[in-house]
């Protein structure tokens, strides 16, 4: 499709949908806005497109087809993000009007089904983590980290150590939000880098901890797919100086049911429901992040929790959280996402969840072995060891040999209808890419992805031009990035575009003219 910007489809007078008119009795005799003062009237109608319903639908259907969702491609090229299958039945269950048409303030007795679901979900998460209490509020992984940082902040404050414990330690292969959200909550950040085996350097940690250490925010296995076997030592070290330990388990997929945060010595942890727990990613949300804490920290959780009253046999919204950080999100969490996670857990059970992790490991190591055979590819760190659920690879050699970079490879992979992502910044691993096969893909699909990767790597050696000039089969061609970074050129809305340009990017007025 060569689908125009929606404003180019507008035709004055067309209507996409009609609104229920106020009945005669409710209409005022005048045409005006009643008691709204003149100054607050909108003088000109908002410049929204005017389109018939079918054209609106067609526009968005066409745009939808210009996407590669997990349902459509072999979506293992987005490492760290656990692009697993999101069962359609769970979408159907979440679309039930008995879920979607509930108001958060309706009497609890009329929402018992939903409250029970939330309560039970918490019980399952407790079993999976070994933690004592969960908040289902956060809207995503970064939000969960922010919530944890808020709890650490409240904990520090509650101990009167606000000025003393002001450092949070994290690792370079942990998600950037660990550093960013902690900073927001007023902590200084100390970042640990990996040792030669790819695992965070325990000596660096020892050097970093002190009575200023508020907490350790760490992932394990980290984004490079290597499990830190000494994780308990890490948490012990931090505990020894009185700090807390927070486990970033946004992606739990490689160890689900195999090992738990509790036994590894963590005080807090979180899961992304849109990763391990299968809720779809929705172009970047709505997702869900759930935060688990030990008994000691439960009193800091945001309100309300969902509790059960034995007496009345009723579930209720529990605001009795003495040191609560208050709220981090409107109402009680991303309900349709939580419901999907509930259904997913229920459909698999104990054995199923463990099989998820086992097959995620199996798939990943199968792909790992095959990628290492590709000329130009390598997997830095921990040579000879197997990996967990994902691997961060490097095209360093291929780039040296051919000049083709991981970004070039990325653009070329699109030509074959598969997604491929480089990696989070900074690129400690040179020319990186991260592959996470999850449990959702069959061997045949993994083989197909590998064949494409092999083909493109081979092209890099035999016909680098075709890779460097990719994509060739995308809806669009090379984008000029200058228009995204220069304040004079960027246009973040059509309104801004129209102020800066006429026609196709013809500047309205000369700059510095």
């Amino acid at each position: 499709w060569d689908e125009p910007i929606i404003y180019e489809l507008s035709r004055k007078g067309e209507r996409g949908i009609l609104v229920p008119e106020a009945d005669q009795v409710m209409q005022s005799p005048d045409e005006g806005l009643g008691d709204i003062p003149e100054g607050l009237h909108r003088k000109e109608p908002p410049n929204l497109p005017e389109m018939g319903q079918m054209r609106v639908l067609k526009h968005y259907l066409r745009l939808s087809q210009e996407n590669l969702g997990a349902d459509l491609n072999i979506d293992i090229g987005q490492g760290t993000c656990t692009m697993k299958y999101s069962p359609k039945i769970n979408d159907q269950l979440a679309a039930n009007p008995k879920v979607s048409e509930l108001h958060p303030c309706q009497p609890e007795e009329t929402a018992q089904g939903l409250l029970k679901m939330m309560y039970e979900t918490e019980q399952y998460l407790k079993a999976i983590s070994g933690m004592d209490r969960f908040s289902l509020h956060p809207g995503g992984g970064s939000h969960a980290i922010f919530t944890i940082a808020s709890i650490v902040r409240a904990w520090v404050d509650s101990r009167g150590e606000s000025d003393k414990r002001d450092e949070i330690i994290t690792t370079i292969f942990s998600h950037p939000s660990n550093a960013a959200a902690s900073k927001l909550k007023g902590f200084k950040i100390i970042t640990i880098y990996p040792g030669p085996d790819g695992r965070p350097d325990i000596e660096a940690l020892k050097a970093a901890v002190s009575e200023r250490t508020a907490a350790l925010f760490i992932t394990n296995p980290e984004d490079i797919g290597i499990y830190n076997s000494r994780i308990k030592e890490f948490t012990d070290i931090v505990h020894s100086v009185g700090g807390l330990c927070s486990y970033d388990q946004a992606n739990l997929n490689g160890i689900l049911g195999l090992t738990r945060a509790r036994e590894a010595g963590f005080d807090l942890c979180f899961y992304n429901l849109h990763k391990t727990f299968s809720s779809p990613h929705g172009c970047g949300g709505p997702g869900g992040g759930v935060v688990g804490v030990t008994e000691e920290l439960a009193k800091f959780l945001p309100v309300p929790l969902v509790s059960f009253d034995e007496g009345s046999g009723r579930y209720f919204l529990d605001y009795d959280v003495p040191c609560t950080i208050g709220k981090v999100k409107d109402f009680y969490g991303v309900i349709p996402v939580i419901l999907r996670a509930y259904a997913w857990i229920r459909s698999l059970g104990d054995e199923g969840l463990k099989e998820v992790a086992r097959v995620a490991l199996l798939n990943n190591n199968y792909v790992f072995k095959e990628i290492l055979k590709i000329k130009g590819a390598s997997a830095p760190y921990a040579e000879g060891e197997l990996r967990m659920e994902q691997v961060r690879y490097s095209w360093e050699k291929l780039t040296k040999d051919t000049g083709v970079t991981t970004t070039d490879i990325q653009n070329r992979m699109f030509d074959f209808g598969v997604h491929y992502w480089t990696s989070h910044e900074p690129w400690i691993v040179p020319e990186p890419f991260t592959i996470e096969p999850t449990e959702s893909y069959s061997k045949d699909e993994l083989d197909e992805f590998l064949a494409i990767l092999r083909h493109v790597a081979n092209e890099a050696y035999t016909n680098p031009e075709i890779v460097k000039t990719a994509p060739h089969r995308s809806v669009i061609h090379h984008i000029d990035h200058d228009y995204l970074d220069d304040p004079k050129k960027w246009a973040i809305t059509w309104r801004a575009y129209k102020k800066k340009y006429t026609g196709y990017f013809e500047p309205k007025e000369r700059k510095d003219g």
Partner: protein
Amino acid sequence: MEKRKVVHPYIPNSVPEVQKEMMEAIGINDIEELYKCIPDELKFKGPLNLPKPLLSEWELKRHVDGMMQENASCLEYLSFLGGGCYQHYVPAICDEVNRRSEFLTAYAGEPYEDHGRFQALFEYASMMAELLEMDVVNVPTYDGSQAAATSLRMASRITKRDKVLVLGNSNPDRLRIIKNYCHPGVEVEVLPFDLETGTANLDLLKQKVDENVAAVYFENPSFFGTVEAKGQEIADLVHDAGGLLVVFVEPNSLGVLAPPSRYGADIVCGDLQSLGLHMYYGGARAGFIATPDEERFVMEYPSRLFGIAPTSHKEWGFGDVAWERTSFAKRENAKEFVGTAAALWAITAGVYLALMGPQGMEDLGKGILQRTRYARKLLSEIPGVKPVFPQTPAYREFVLNFDDTGMDVEEINQRLLEEKIFGCIDLSKRFPSLGFSGLFCVTEIHSAGDIERLAKALAKVIS
């Protein structure tokens, strides 16, 4: 009889023969070898304490739907609840689009493969920009409260000041979120509202606004539904002191009400729930932030911003504007943080705005104003019921006082429930100064008959 191993539909490679084949390729004999790096004492060996799996879809569906059967929805009961989550009509096309596999299961693809997602989000921002009359709109945050909190943090960074003033007629839960989000670093002071009008107390503001104030924040309409008419005065006040005005606005009022940019707001924020999202027990939210197209504003956004750009073949291309601001690029040196938030809801809100168009938004706003007036008038006529802030125009929500009925709000609601009506939000505890008062809400889905049914039930209940 040996139990056959379950090959789960979600895990194709749980087929034993396939596993064997793959293990051979890897060079192992047992899957357990794959996690031998986990020390034995950390290995979890018991069963997780979980209920028996519901392996067939039918059992799963029967179980979950059965559980949800215990809920009574706002389609079954007649609801007048608002307070931050609203029962508006969601057009079928909104659901159709956001349930499309291609949007639902896409994620972080690049502009070349996910062109449609980028365009849809750019268009969303463009339509919001017109509604708000602002030139920059972000890819949404988790919710409106997060947008409000970030707006205040942005104002603090822009002005390099660390105090903000917020009006006390704001949503109290939102203020809790703002306070936690701004702590530490930005002090949040809540100013009492004018008890007479339910709007800003201008005299108090004049006293409070000084050169330490990064921003003044208010909501329009307020938590009580009152419409703030003194926006320009407040803007002038704070601008004179070198601060910014941040307004949290209900976007679906903007077909009839002037956008905050018209009365001097520098940063406008709000929630998208009213634009085509189902209520989901408060679980469907997305926050927007809008500012002028000036570098000092744009560079302070933590969110992703999608811009339009030319391509080598003269198509419309898209991409991230000023990526280097974000925590993806800069970790702790970024502006706040960013992660997976609520993009699908923004696409949905875009669909909503495209369907509604200017005329639809005007009809919507007008219809809600008409219903609000009608409902407030009709209910106020019931003996014992008094309108609160009777002189202030209201949008969608309004407060009624029941002091003269001899009943508390909880009791009234309980009795209305017997009539299959979700009545009002009880303000008695959080706003004791208002007495036994409740917050009622009407939207375009309410017919005159619905409102009359409430009036009749209420009259019966308190008589």
